[in-house]
């Protein structure tokens, strides 16, 4: 029973990792841009949700609002600053986004203090689900269902719509997209905002589960990297499989070996890289 509990926890956690990794992957695919500020957008999403619920907003308003604000801020940063540095070597992408992540982290500490806080489960989902002798928090069950629907929508958006075709076309050849008459600058801004918004949404959904604290962004960034490395960059299915795998491994290990649970994520990654350098489903 405890394992079923942990596997469910792991699936919920893994879906959040998936959202983070897909955002990172989409940004990298289209812009060839290494975004070390991705964790900072996750952090911001979580803190905005915390702040809005503290101000009396319902979680159901706070979550989409936080996501939109993060996406807006990210799009603004892209339009003002980041598009200037795409042509520079990766070193400078990393320098700028590490700098941005520091700025966001410090602003969060200035605005909300260094200690963090907790976000209550939203109205209507504060109870537990009881099935025989199995008890599970409603909110966690909701995140699994919600993110599953979201994952389906994302897949449809990226693979089945004209918008997705534009994004994929842009990642194949930006020059051809520009020749076809698309405003690649505006597409870049929108996609960056979209990817960052996914990170913000993951933060907003994570807030009632794990609370908020100023350094949660770094942990999220490195887990997103692990997922992308294991699953293969630019692969939607890879991000989904790897995200779920990492989440479930981490959760189940919490029961078997609590101190080493997070260590096992990285040991698992090292094993995958040693055996399959391209990742599970990677193309490049």
């Amino acid at each position: 029973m405890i394992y079923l509990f942990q596997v469910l926890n792991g699936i919920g956690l893994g879906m959040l990792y998936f959202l983070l990794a897909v955002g990172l992957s989409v940004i990298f695919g289209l812009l060839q841009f290494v975004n070390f500020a991705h964790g900072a957008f996750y952090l911001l999403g979580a803190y905005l949700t915390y702040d809005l619920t503290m101000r009396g907003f319902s979680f159901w308003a706070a979550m989409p609002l936080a996501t939109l604000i993060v996406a807006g801020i990210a799009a603004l940063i892209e339009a003002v600053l980041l598009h200037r540095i795409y042509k520079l070597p990766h070193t400078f992408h990393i320098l700028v986004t590490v700098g941005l992540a520091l700025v966001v982290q410090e602003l969060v500490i200035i605005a909300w203090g260094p200690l963090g806080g907790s976000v209550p489960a939203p109205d209507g989902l504060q109870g537990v689900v009881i099935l025989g002798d199995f008890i599970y928090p409603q909110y966690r069950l909701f995140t699994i269902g919600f993110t599953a629907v979201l994952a389906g929508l994302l897949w449809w958006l990226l693979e089945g719509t004209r918008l997705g075709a534009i994004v994929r076309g842009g990642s194949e050849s930006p020059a051809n997209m520009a020749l076809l008459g698309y405003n690649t600058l505006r597409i870049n801004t929108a996609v960056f905002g979209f990817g960052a918004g996914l990170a913000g949404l993951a933060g907003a959904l994570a807030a009632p589960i794990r609370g908020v604290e100023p350094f949660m962004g770094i942990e999220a960034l490195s887990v997103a990297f692990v997922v992308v490395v294991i699953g293969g960059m630019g692969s939607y299915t890879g991000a989904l499989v790897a995200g779920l795998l990492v989440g479930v491994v981490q959760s189940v290990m919490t029961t078997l070996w609590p101190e080493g649970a997070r260590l096992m994520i990285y040991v698992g990654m090292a094993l995958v890289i040693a055996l399959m350098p391209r990742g599970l489903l990677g193309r490049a």
Partner: protein
Amino acid sequence: MNPLDKPYAQLALALLTVLVLPLFLKSGILATEILIFAMVVAACNLLLGYTGLLSFGQGIFFGIGTYVAGICLTRWSVPVPLVLAGAAVLGAATATLVGWLSIRRQGVYFVMLTLAFSQLFYFVAYTFSGVTGGDNGLLGVPRPSVGGTALNSPWSYYTFVAVCFVAVFALLVMVTQSTFGRTLLAIRENEGRAAAIGFPTKLFKLEAFAISGAVTAFGGALHAMLIGVAPLSNIEYHTSELILIMTIIGGSSSLFGSVLGAGFYLLLADALSTVWPRWLLLLGLVLVTVALFLQRGLWGLVERGYDLVFRRERAPETPAEEH
């Protein structure tokens, strides 16, 4: 080539730094820290500037050196030269392992892997707290003693570190000037071509990793003896980030640029952190500024200044052609 980039000029600048720091700084501890990080950052530069490998995992090796010193000196009182040698060997071995796994992927994946490995080693240190002291670290790491007297005053330990620094810096200059170092540059410029000529490029990259890891762990051991603790923070993500930031700020085209990067960062940190605890906000803005306007780092600034003063006939805007 700018005369300042010549090996003897680099070495002279390093010697000058060692002599000048005590004249301008009141704190021997800060001066010692600058020298320790200067060699660690130069080792990172061997990977970034000379091999084209952007390693986000230098904190791993720094932390390992720290723990070697912490464990050997607090539990078994191993002689210091042996500790430093042991740190360097273990650092080289770990760097070879991490390098071997990471260079299986290239470009951005390589960077992400090194970052993930830095998290792996952080959690190893955090999880096995019986060995590493976990969150508390290992307390009471003694200073080394020379001729029977412990180097307990800041400036006497500074002298010890200064000798180490000059030796390590000279070693790194020699490495970059050697055929080996030239081959690394060839790999950075065009790995496919270097491989086609017949160089085993992966082996060369691993060797660069090993040297870099040895120096970094050596610096980590010196750092533990400086602050008297082997803290968990030395193996954290932040240490890796710190070393990389110093390297890029200093400029990756010269080893002495790394000394400038370490000095600039630590002096800035020292000045600002007392004034404003949230000074990292300003650091973030500095990083953005460097990427936009100072892509050759502080060393690029020095080169431009040199050209302006000594070679007026040349237009200062055209940077000296590399190689």
